[in-house]
């Protein structure tokens, strides 16, 4: 089988003398849905930025599709990995279509205009943004803009998509839509996903495996069912969690933090 997953071994990072990541190792298989959870400042976002090449100068090794990430050009890397940042600039005067055309930049000279147009149309279709493709990004709501950011990552046609808290600033309807989009891209195109999130229930519902980080270390990696184990989340977040079971056939389980009542 072709070696096109993401392998991280012994990743450590210091910024201005402060240790941000220490000795992180994990593999993400092709087509796997991988969630990273943890407290604020645990190093989750930094980990994503190392993988997609925004931050360099780390120790250890990041392997993307069998190639050392450090040896890849920006263009080469962006053909393999797409990145959806947390929040997005809002004062941008470009139209949605302009932006999606730009996300074909890594393939310039390789893919034909017809291919580009098809990829863009598909990405718009998958994210349901075709209706406002000629509007300016600055005129969109936060939820619409997030869809455009995801569409842009899809149009980039990579083997993996990394997202930094994709649902954090969204209302419930947009959260559900975003989760649908992520699972669609993951299952239809078998794109590997690495999603950093605070939303435990997103992780339990979509992820194949979950990793928990604290203080720049990988504390635990396992199947989402592991999150339901007694003190697992308490250990990660320092807050007791309680499990709720939906009052419906099938009984989906939800995890929610408990407020300590004195």
């Amino acid at each position: 089988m072709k070696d096109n997953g993401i392998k991280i071994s012994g990743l450590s990072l210091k910024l201005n003398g402060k240790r941000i990541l220490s000795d992180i190792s994990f593999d993400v298989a092709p087509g796997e849905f991988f969630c990273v959870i943890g407290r604020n400042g645990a190093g989750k976002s930094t980990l994503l930025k190392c993988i997609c090449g925004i931050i360099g100068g780390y120790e250890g090794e990041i392997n993307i599709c069998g190639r050392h990430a450090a040896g890849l050009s920006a263009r080469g890397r962006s053909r393999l990995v797409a990145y959806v940042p947390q929040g997005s600039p809002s004062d941008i005067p470009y139209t949605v279509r302009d932006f999606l055309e730009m996300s074909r930049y890594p393939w310039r000279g390789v893919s034909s205009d017809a291919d580009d147009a098809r990829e863009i149309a598909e990405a718009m279709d998958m994210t349901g943004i075709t209706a406002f493709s000629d509007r300016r990004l600055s005129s969109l709501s936060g939820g619409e803009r997030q869809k455009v950011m995801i569409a842009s990552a899809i149009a980039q046609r990579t083997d993996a998509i990394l997202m930094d808290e994709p649902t954090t600033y969204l209302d419930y309807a947009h959260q559900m839509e975003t989760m649908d989009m992520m699972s669609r891209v993951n299952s239809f195109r078998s794109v590997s996903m690495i999603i950093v999130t605070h939303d435990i229930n997103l992780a339990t519902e979509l992820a194949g495996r979950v990793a928990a980080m604290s203080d720049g270390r990988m504390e635990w990696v396992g199947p989402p069912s592991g999150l339901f184990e007694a003190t697992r989340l308490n250990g990660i977040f320092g807050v007791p969690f309680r499990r709720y079971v939906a009052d419906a056939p099938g009984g989906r389980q939800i995890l929610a933090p408990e407020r300590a009542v004195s």
Partner: protein
Amino acid sequence: MRFSRSVWVIAALFAVMLLVAAIAPWMGVRLISPDEIFGWRGSTPDPAEAKIFWQLRVPRVIMALCAGATFGICGMVFQALFRNPLAEPSLLGVSSGAALGAAIAIRVGFSAGILGSQGVSYLYEAVGWQRLFGEMVTPVFAFAGSLLAISIISVFSRLTRNANDASLLLAGVAVSSLFSSLIMVFQYTGGAVETYKLLSWTMGGISVVGMSEGLRALPSLILAFAMSSFCSTELDLITFGDEIAATRGVELERTKRLLFAGMSLSVALVVANCGPISFLGLIAPHVARRFIGARHRSLTPCSAAIGAIALVICDTAARTLWAPADIPVGIIICFMGAPFFLWLLFKPRER
């Protein structure tokens, strides 16, 4: 359809630019009519008028075209690179570096004139250096001054690794202010003639004699236009921020350094010849964006055309409004530009 609209806008702007450029040289202290130059309608061409037309007015319009277009493009690129709508060449120390160079040249030129012995100036005259040196010395010093400013800023950005755009911009402002204070020392301590010459140079003005001088800004224009056209998608992506640009495949460090160096060189060459004409680099790209949107592929020719049109019109005004006085075009640009820009900002947007 979208594409054809931008082509149409660009074509219209270039037509306006050519029209303005075709009309401008006939205007001046005295209106020259085509009959006097080409001998149409039975009149005999006047050699004196022809000399004024071909040696002074046409080169001056060409210089204004090239310089205006260069300022427009460089302003656009700086605004994208620094992700700041206020960025313009004169903010980044390039102009004040050039002004400092010019100040030194003017000061040294005068001192040499006063101190230099009769023999030296005879020697100059004999070799023809006097003329050559006299004409070239101010632009050469100005160019050296802006190179100095650029290198200080580049060294600074290299020393502080991960220097972000805001700190680079602030470094430019600091260098600018440092150089301005030195210029003020020259102005304050100089004689009346010297100070006047320096002051009028720092206001920005176009004065060229002969076609070869008129073409001096052309290399700047070619460099700026070629670089920003070649990097138009990179500029688009950089507008979205470093993270988006880097993860969409832009070699950020290299691209930014290359564009910064190229644009600074272009501006330096123009400023060396015309003085620091401020405001044009700020305003031209903003007007162009209103016409054609933000994509740099079509924004580049648009900013260039608008910069060129504005500078040719203002320069024509500069030499006709108070004729026979020829006031620095920088004054006109600011005087006409500021209200226009305010109107543009507060005008309700249609969308």
